[in-house]
C-alpha cells in the first residue's frame, strides 16, 4: 500500500506525520519526495548506503548536420531553442528532457547529452527502508528526481511518501499512483485555504484522501467544519503541545519519546486502510 502525505500550505507537519507514522509501523519504506528541501532524514538519521545521480537528457547540436530548418524550435513546447539566420541556440535550463527534438530533426543533427540534476540516496533508519532525493542547487525541475526516488518503491512494504507543499508539478509527481493521501493542515485560515486547493487537486486525480489537523487548539474550527461539510474524513488531531515542539526542534520524532502516540498512529493507519 502506498500512502502519500501532502498539504496545501507548507510547514503544517507533513514530515512529522510521515516520520512518526513510519516509526509506528512495521515493514515500512519511507520516500522523501520533497526533493527541493528534503528533511525527513534529519529526523530519522538514516545510514546512507547507496547514492545514485539523476540525469536528464539535454540536446546538443551537431552543426555539421544542422541546416537550420527550425523544426526543433517549432516543436519545443518550452522554447529551449532559437533558430534564425543560420544560427541555432540551445537553452538547456528550459529543456524538460522529453527527447522530442531528436525525433523531429530531419537531419539527425540532435545528439543526446546527459545533465546531472540531482541525486537519490538510499539507506536504512532503524527498521525503515529510507530513500530520498536531492535536487541540485539551481536546477529548476524537481520532477525527474522525484520519479527516480519513486522507482525505488517496494510494493511488498507499506510505502509512505512525503511530498512537497503546494499543488504544482512536484506534488502531482509525488502523490501520483498512491492508494491514499493524507492531507496535513493547521486549523488556521491559511491552512484551510490551501487545504481547499489540495482537496481540489486530489479529487481531480481520483486519489482517496483524509485530513490530519496538526497544532490543534490554535486558530479556529473552520477546518473541521469544512471537512464535515465536504464529507472528508478527519483522521487525527495532534494538539499544539510544547513537548512535541521541543522534540521536533531537537530533531526527534515524538513517538520515540511519547510512545503512547504510536497507538494513535496505528489507529490512523487503520483508518487509512478502511478509507482507501
Amino acid at each position, binding site marked *: 500500500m502506498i500512502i502519500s502525505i501532502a498539504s496545501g500550505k507548507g510547514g503544517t507537519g507533513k514530515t512529522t506525520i510521515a516520520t512518526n507514522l513510519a516509526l509506528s509501523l512495521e515493514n515500512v519504506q519511507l520516500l522523501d519526495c520533497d526533493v*527541493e528541501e528534503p528533511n525527513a532524514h534529519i529526523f530519522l538519521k538514516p545510514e546512507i548506503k547507496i547514492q545514485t545521480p539523476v540525469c536528464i537528457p539535454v540536446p546538443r547540436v551537431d552543426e555539421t548536420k544542422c541546416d537550420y530548418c527550425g523544426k526543433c524550435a517549432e516543436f*519545443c513546447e518550452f522554447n529551449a531553442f532559437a533558430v*534564425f539566420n543560420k544560427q541555432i541556440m540551445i537553452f538547456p535550463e*528550459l529543456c524538460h528532457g522529453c527527447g522530442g527534438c531528436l525525433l523531429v530533426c530531419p537531419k539527425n543533427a540532435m545528439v543526446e547529452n546527459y545533465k546531472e540534476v540531482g541525486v537519490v540516496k538510499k539507506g536504512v533508519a532503524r527498521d525503515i527502508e529510507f530513500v530520498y532525493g536531492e535536487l541540485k542547487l539551481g536546477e529548476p525541475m524537481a520532477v525527474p528526481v522525484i520519479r527516480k526516488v519513486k522507482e525505488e518503491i517496494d510494493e511488498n512494504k507499506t510505502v509512505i511518501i512525503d511530498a512537497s507543499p503546494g499543488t504544482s508539478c512536484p506534488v502531482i509527481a509525488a502523490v501520483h499512483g498512491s492508494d491514499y493521501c493524507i492531507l496535513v493542515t493547521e486549523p488556521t485560515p491559511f491552512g484551510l485555504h490551501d487545504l481547499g486547493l489540495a482537496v481540489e487537486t486530489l479529487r481531480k486525480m481520483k486519489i482517496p484522501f483524509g485530513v490530519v489537523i496538526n497544532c490543534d487548539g490554535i486558530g479556529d474550527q473552520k477546518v473541521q467544519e469544512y471537512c464535515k461539510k465536504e464529507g472528508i474524513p478527519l483522521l487525527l488531531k495532534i494538539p499544539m503541545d510544547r513537548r512535541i515542539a521541543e522534540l521536533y526542534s531537537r530533531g526527534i520524532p515524538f513517538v520515540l519519546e511519547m510512545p503512547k502516540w504510536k497507538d494513535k498512529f496505528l489507529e490512523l493507519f487503520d483508518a487509512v486502510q478502511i478509507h482507501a
Partner: protein
Amino acid sequence: MKICVTASSGSLDTQVDPRFGRCQYFLIVDSDTMDFEAMPNISADTMGGAGIQAAQAVANKGVEVVITGNVGPNAIQTLSAAGIKIITGAFGTVREVIKMHKSGQLKETSGATVSEHFGMGMGRKGGRF
C-alpha cells in the same frame, strides 16, 4: 532601417508595450517610409521561454533594432546573437519612439533590464514547475 517596436495593439499610435517576450504586438516599421507590419506576438501566452521565441520571430523578420520597455536575459542573449540592437526604457506611442530613435534620443542597452518571468504577471512569477 527596419525597427521592431513592442506595442499593445497593431497601430502606430498605440502605446509601447513595456514587455518584450510577452508583448501583444510587434510593429515592424520601416523608419524611412513609416510603412509597417503588425505581427501579433504568439509567445505572449507561452508557458516559458517567451523571450527566446519572440526574439527568434523578430530575428527572422530581419530587423536591425528592437525598441521596448524591458528585456530579460534569455531574450537579450538571443537578440544579441542575431546582431540586433536593443533599446529599452521606451515609452509613449510607437510613432513617438521611432521619431525619438531617429533623432538619436534613445540609447542601446547591453544587459537584461529584468529577470526571467518578469512579464508573466501576478501569481505565476517564480512558480515551481
